[in-house]
């Protein structure tokens, strides 16, 4: 398997082709078979490869499998090559298995959708591209996957293509991602120009060999720009909440568990570079922290179940970036893994809720679902506890590790405290809005219509099994930190956290988790929706600002999109017309001269004679 790593992404790709080309004709049965099966096979193949790798490279060296020389042109280019190393393996396992679960879940969730085959072919394609992303041995190959997942994200967000907002959201996602890709591309250009290669290992090696620090900082910041796009960080996070327009399993897979975390992978992968550029690291951490708190506050006032989760995702991604930003790469990756479990679980759970509610997504119309859909409720609760950061669930460990590392980071110690503080406050908000969501959804009494109530039912097994598995993961994920297992396995660079700080962080985390939960219970567990209304009454400005997500979308529209569009119109109607006008003017002048000359031609022969004679005189005057 190690020498056929390409099979891992190729299997879902095959699934994509089969579904895409024949799915429509061969029917849903075929699709239900091919879709999950190809992802399953891929997961199995991946796992086998991992086992073989473990056997063959006990020291965690890099294994590279070159498929063929993809591009080669005057010193620029790369092999199409896949690699396995611990970091890839973590990503590989998360992607394939979570991916498989969500495939499975989708069989149930999407069963009645028109375009079932289309959905699965996209999903398979996504898996393939995501695997290329995490397995690629160079930035260029990674970029292939990077763009590919962007495409699939676009296609899947816009899956309900006859809904305007879905399509617009898909486009927004793609375009915003492209802005990030711009950074990625330029970073690669820099690598080619100065290092002559984009191979992960070679780049790190050359950079470590001593190059201008400014160059490394530039590359790192550019890569991070890419990451902010894909991982929805400030200032490019705006696409992710909108992306909830896609089917819910998609949100779970792409916009929670896998794709959006690619940015974190993107920072962890070239950690050698980042460590050479502490300034860049600082930027990452600051952006991460700001995003974490920013998105968390917005999450408080969202009423769409998926929107809450979306902002939560943004916020959690912010945590991950704090982690990698302060140089605690392992912590970042750890949170990535745990987040994959609980956030996938939450999304799938929300999907199950929506499924049960016949498509209703507004939590103000839910409530009291605890009894009706127990499996969903339980798993949702577990995941909520995990994300809120209660020990000993997985979220606690990973979040705590990040915050502790922030407190202790050696790269910019002065700032570390602030980042920790912000992170902790964000954690408080996290616990608060998550439990608000939980209480409003499952607690209290049902606020929906009769009809909805009548249809309430638990989901089929293909949907609940993944929920259970993911909930289990949410609970047990913390185990990875036992004995610093993950740390040793990943062998990412790390630093010591003094016990005092570790304890401080841990205690603070626990306290904020409890506090947040208690607030949520006190407000929403008891009063339900009334709490929201009271908030609105007490601080209408704040409430409205939060509800409208700080008006960032509006700001972007007003400050960027509209002026740019106006400018474009000006170019078209103004500049183009001006150019045409100038050229036309030239034409008209010639034509006008011609017309004037025409009137020299009076038809009177004496005039011609005069013209002749004047010509003679003038010529004599000039030339004689």
């Amino acid at each position: 398997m190690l020498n056929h790593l390409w099979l891992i992404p190729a299997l879902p790709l095959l699934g994509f082709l089969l579904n895409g080309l024949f799915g429509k004709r061969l029917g849903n049965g075929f699709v239900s078979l091919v879709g999950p099966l190809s992802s399953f096979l891929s997961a199995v193949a991946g796992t086998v490869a991992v086992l073989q790798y473990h056997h063959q490279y006990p020291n965690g060296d890099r294994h590279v499998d070159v498929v063929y020389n993809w591009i080669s042109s005057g010193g620029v280019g790369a092999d199409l090559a896949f690699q396995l190393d611990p970091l890839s393996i973590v990503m590989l396992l998360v992607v394939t298995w979570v991916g498989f679960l969500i495939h499975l879940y989708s069989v149930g969730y999407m069963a009645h959708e028109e375009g079932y085959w289309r959905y699965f072919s996209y999903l398979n394609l996504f898996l393939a591209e995501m695997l290329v992303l995490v397995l690629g041995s160079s930035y260029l190959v990674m970029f292939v996957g990077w763009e590919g997942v962007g495409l699939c994200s676009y296609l899947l967000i816009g899956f309900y293509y006859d809904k305007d907002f879905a399509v617009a959201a898909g486009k927004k996602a793609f375009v915003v991602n492209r802005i990030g890709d711009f950074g990625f591309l330029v970073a690669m250009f820099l690598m080619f120009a100065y290092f002559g290669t984009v191979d992960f290992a070679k780049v790190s090696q050359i950079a470590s060999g001593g190059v201008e620090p400014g160059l490394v900082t530039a590359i790192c910041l550019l890569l991070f720009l890419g990451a902010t796009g894909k991982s929805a960080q400030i200032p490019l996070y705006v696409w992710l909440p909108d992306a909830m327009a896609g089917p819910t399993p998609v949100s779970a897979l792409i916009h929670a568990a896998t794709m959006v975390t690619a940015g974190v992978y993107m920072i962890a992968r070239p950690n050698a570079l980042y460590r050479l550029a502490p300034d860049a690291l600082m930027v990452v951490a600051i952006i991460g922290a700001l995003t974490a708190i920013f998105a968390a506050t917005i999450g408080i006032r969202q009423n769409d179940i998926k929107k809450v989760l979306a902002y939560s995702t943004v916020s959690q991604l912010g945590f991950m970036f704090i982690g990698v930003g302060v140089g605690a790469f392992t912590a970042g990756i750890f949170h990535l893994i745990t987040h994959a479990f609980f956030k996938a679980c939450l999304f799938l759970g929300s999907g199950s809720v929506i499924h049960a509610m016949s498509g209703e997504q507004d939590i103000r119309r839910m409530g009291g679902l605890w009894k009706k859909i127990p499996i969903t409720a339980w798993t949702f609760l577990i995941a909520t506890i995990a994300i809120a950061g209660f020990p000993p669930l997985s979220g606690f460990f990973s979040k705590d590790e990040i915050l502790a590392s922030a407190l202790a980071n050696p790269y910019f110690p002065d700032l570390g405290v602030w980042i920790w503080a912000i992170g902790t406050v964000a954690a408080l908000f996290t616990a608060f809005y998550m439990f608000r969501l939980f209480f409003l959804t499952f607690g209290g009494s049902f606020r929906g219509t009769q009809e909805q109530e009548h249809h309430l039912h638990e989901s089929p097994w293909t949907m609940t099994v993944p929920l259970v598995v993911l909930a289990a993961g949410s609970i047990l994920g913390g185990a990875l930190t036992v004995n610093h297992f993950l740390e040793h396995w990943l062998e990412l660079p790390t630093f010591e956290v003094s016990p005092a700080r570790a304890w401080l962080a841990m205690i603070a985390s626990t306290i904020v988790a409890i506090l947040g939960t208690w607030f949520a219970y006190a407000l929403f567990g008891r009063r339900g929706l009334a709490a929201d209304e009271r908030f609105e009454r007490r601080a209408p400005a704040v409430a409205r600002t939060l509800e409208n997500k700080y008006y960032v979308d509006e700001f972007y529209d007003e400050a960027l999109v509209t002026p740019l569009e106006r400018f474009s119109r000006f170019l078209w109607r103004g500049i183009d017309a001006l150019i045409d006008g100038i050229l036309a003017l030239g034409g008209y002048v010639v034509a006008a001269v011609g017309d004037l000359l025409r009137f020299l031609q009076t038809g009177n022969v004496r005039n011609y004679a005069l013209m002749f004679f004047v010509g003679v005189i003038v010529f004599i005057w000039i030339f004689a």
Partner: protein
Amino acid sequence: MTLHPLIEPGWVNAILPELVLCVGGLLLMLLGAFGARLRGITAPLALIVFIVTAWSEKLVLAGTFFGGTYEISGITRIFDITFLLSAILATLFAREYLEREGIEGGEFYALLMWATVGMMMMAKGLDLLIVILGLELLSICIFVLVGYHRRIPVSNEASLKYFLMGAFATGFILYGTALFYGATRSTNFTEMARAFSTADPNNVLLSIAFVLLMSGLGFKLAAAPFHGWAPDVYQGAPSPIAGWLSVAPKAATLIALVRLLSAMLPMLQFSLWMKMIAALSVLSMVIGNAAAIAQRDLKRMLAYSGIAHVGYMLIALLSLRDDSVAAIAVYTITYALMNIGAFGVVSTLAKNQNDPQTLDDIAGLGFRSPFSGLALTVCMFSLSGLPPTAGFIAKFYIFKTAVDSGHLAIAIVGILTSIVSVYYYLRVVYYLYMKEPAEGYAIVPAGGIFATGALAITMIGIFVIGLFPTPLFAMAGAAARALLP
């Protein structure tokens, strides 16, 4: 000079083409007198005469005759061929045109022949006397040919205009010649050249003479600003004659000018004379092309375009070298094909000849009558100098000559005005293929086998010269080298 010309050896061979044409003309005249029944065969007979003349060119001996006043060489042969080609094409187009208009007669072809004789004299004369005589013979015939369609007023008016302007210009030519005669004691080019090499280049009188002579010749060339007559005359003249008129006399004048200028070579360097030719060239290109844009009448448009083409030909004249003479020869042959072809298509339009033949008349013609449309398109593209037509090759040659001799600035003017010219040539193609004719107004070309044959000759010629110009170049080049030592 005192040698008795009648015993100069080979004189019959020397002027064989002229003799054939003179006699042929007389015969056709006589034929006309014998009655209407024979009128149908006048055109074929005329063709035969022209062809025989062309064939007789092979028998012509090179050399100088009549006491050094008449020179026959390779270049005159090429120009003779050009004249004959123009005449043949004109005859072919005229045949059906005259028949349609009911004015057929042997006189027409006779005059065409004598005009050709006049042009041959212009091309071969080594003495201004011969040249002017040829010019007058040509002019007299043109006066008549232009006014040949007597029943329609425009033809008469055109004839009047050409006559008055022509006679006026003749006055200037003669006066210029007289002044030159005073300065050089001769009107013979060889002797003039000798005199010029010792003449005072600052003599204003000489320059005045040059301007007078050039303006007269410029009139014949229809070079701006002596072009005033051209559009009106072309419009009024019978279309086949207009085409012929726009080409052949210009060619004859140009070759005469080449001889004249090479006689003046010593003067040219120290005077502004070449600058005058340059000015004529630039003015012609600019005025011709600009004014053509405003024209909707096809014949007037072609007239203006002809003015512009004279400008191009004059570019070559600027550098008096063998190459430039060859370029002029190539250009005139090419121009004969394409311009007479274009006028020929116009001549087939069956409508009242007193009305202008506008662009609207050819709207949609390309699909109504594919052959005529194609022929006109080819002519237009050749006129605008786009490959792979002869027009391209000819223009290439002209500009190459200009570049070779360092006249880049004027070549740029030529190129820029060519761009303008593309516009109006293109407009013809636009009308041919892209414009629907007005309701119930679809003129179908009335050309028969003669016109069709002429168009075929035109097109084949344009493409053959465009694709395989080598033989023509070889001929013209060799001839030009012989002309200018």
